[in-house]
């Protein structure tokens, strides 16, 4: 897979504060890459640097294997923090200004407004828009040039549940077209629902990164009980893929190693003549995992 964005030892210091600390990561073509971290963890600063509006203190990055230039910028659609438009211009005129700058075909404007559900409001001035509409107009602006890569910074911020669902749906639809999406979010749930890869940031440092499945969903917990717990405990000690187990009252909580599931455990138990009266697979709460990741 081709590398769309490569970040190498990128740092940004504001005086004594290090907003981004020696960040290194790569985004592959076709992935939906989540930058996950609490507020103030350096997500926006990182995106600002790779989008050419914040000067890195040190380190480097490249888009499509090249430095950033007008040509590479035209292959990227990005929205950083808030939707930025002229309040006194209509939605359509705002997009005309952006189409000029992106060198985009002005015929795309109506099509894109339609895509984000603003076709009927194209002649409303930006200041008359609700937050959700502003966010959707920003998405339209990012999509105007039919870019290969979408960079979205908290795209569902401030939206109501329906708006959030719509935006996520739109992101997934765009990802289905084979486009690369880089998404910064402090919402774990969002990253888990939308992304294929994730990098977790904390105070400017990369804590961990990889496919979402490995980082966020690998640790499944199983709860088992049986009429007789003793043979169960004996077997658990011998099974190589059991990472950890704890007995609680009349059930056992088990954590399996990566790549194994409740099926494996159930099969082995049955093979040993143990019949479980209960087998529940429980995902460790995502919030809990997230907090563990950023604390460790």
């Amino acid at each position: 897979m081709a590398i769309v964005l490569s970040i190498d030892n990128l740092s940004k210091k504001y005086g004594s504060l290090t907003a981004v600390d020696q960040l290194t990561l790569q985004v592959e073509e076709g992935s939906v890459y989540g930058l996950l971290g609490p507020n103030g963890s350096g997500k926006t600063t990182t995106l600002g640097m790779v989008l050419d509006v914040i000067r890195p203190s040190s380190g480097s990055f490249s888009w499509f294997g090249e430095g950033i230039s007008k040509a590479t910028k035209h292959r990227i659609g990005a929205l950083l923090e808030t939707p930025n438009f002229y309040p006194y211009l209509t939605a359509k005129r705002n997009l005309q200004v952006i189409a000029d700058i992106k060198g985009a075909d002005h015929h795309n404007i109506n099509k894109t407004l339609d895509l984000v559900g603003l076709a009927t409001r194209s002649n409303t001035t930006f200041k008359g828009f609700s937050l959700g509409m502003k966010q959707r107009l920003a998405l339209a602006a990012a999509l105007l040039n039919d870019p290969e890569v979408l960079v979205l910074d908290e795209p569902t911020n401030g939206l109501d549940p329906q708006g959030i669902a719509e935006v996520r749906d739109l992101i997934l639809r765009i990802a289905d077209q084979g486009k690369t999406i880089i998404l910064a979010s402090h919402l774990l749930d969002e990253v888990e629902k939308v992304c294929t890869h994730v990098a977790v940031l904390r105070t400017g440092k990369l804590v961990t990164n990889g496919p979402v499945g490995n980082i966020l969903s690998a640790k499944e917990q199983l709860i088992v009980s049986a009429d007789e717990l003793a043979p169960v405990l004996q077997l658990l000690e011998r099974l190589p893929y059991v990472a950890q187990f704890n007995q609680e009252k009349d059930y056992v909580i088990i954590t399996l190693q990566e790549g194994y599931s409740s099926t494996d455990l159930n099969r082995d138990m049955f093979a040993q003549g143990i019949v479980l009266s209960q087998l529940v697979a429980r995902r460790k709460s995502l919030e809990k995992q997230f907090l563990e990741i950023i604390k460790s």
Partner: protein
Amino acid sequence: MNLLRTEFRKIAPYRTFWVILGIYVLLMLLILYSSTSVEINGKALGNETYQFPGLWMRLTYIAHFFNLLLGILVIVLVTDEYSYRTIRQQVIDGLSRAEVVLSKFYMVVTLAVFSTVFLLALGLYFGLLYSSDKSINSMFSQVDYLSYYFVQAVAYMSLAMFFAFLIRKSGLAIIAFIAYTKIIEPLIHFKLPDTLDKYFPMKALDSLTPMPGQEIFDQLTSPVEQLSPAWAALPSLLYIGLFLLLTYLLLKIRDL
């Protein structure tokens, strides 16, 4: 030129822009209508104002006071880009920093062309109406004052543009611009000999539109040494280049 077209897209429906420009036009008209009673050096001008070819000098001298308004207009246009954060978005979308500066400079030149053409129209109108000598020769013999005025307007607005990019907040930028042009530099002039301060930005720019009747004034007091308009054009052009360069460097160094 595409940059200029985009600028026009932004300002066409922008009421603030047209209001400021309208005020400029109205004030110029008002001043010219009433300038028969304006006294320069204790002498009422009367119909003297409208006589070719001295009219061009008087006209550009009056107009130069209103460069302040044009400067404020430019400051509003630039600081808007910061308060709406559109400058950031536009750099993300593909503008280079040089293009950001150029697009505003094109606007500056456009405004200067507008005000120069406006002055030409005003001059011709009032001159043809009131001047006793309407020969082509006398009409246009001193029309070169308009070109000096053009340079001056561009330079004033370039300085305003620099202050706007430097300070980023409209109110503060306007105050800084007025404070520098009207207070700080004149104070520096006080301290320095004329031979030196005649090359300072404001003094060089003001020399482009000299005060009518300066000669009489000089006879009464010790003469003020200043550059002739033609000579002042050279440092003025250099200052325009300097303001543009400083603005560009500012954008280059700072985060958006």
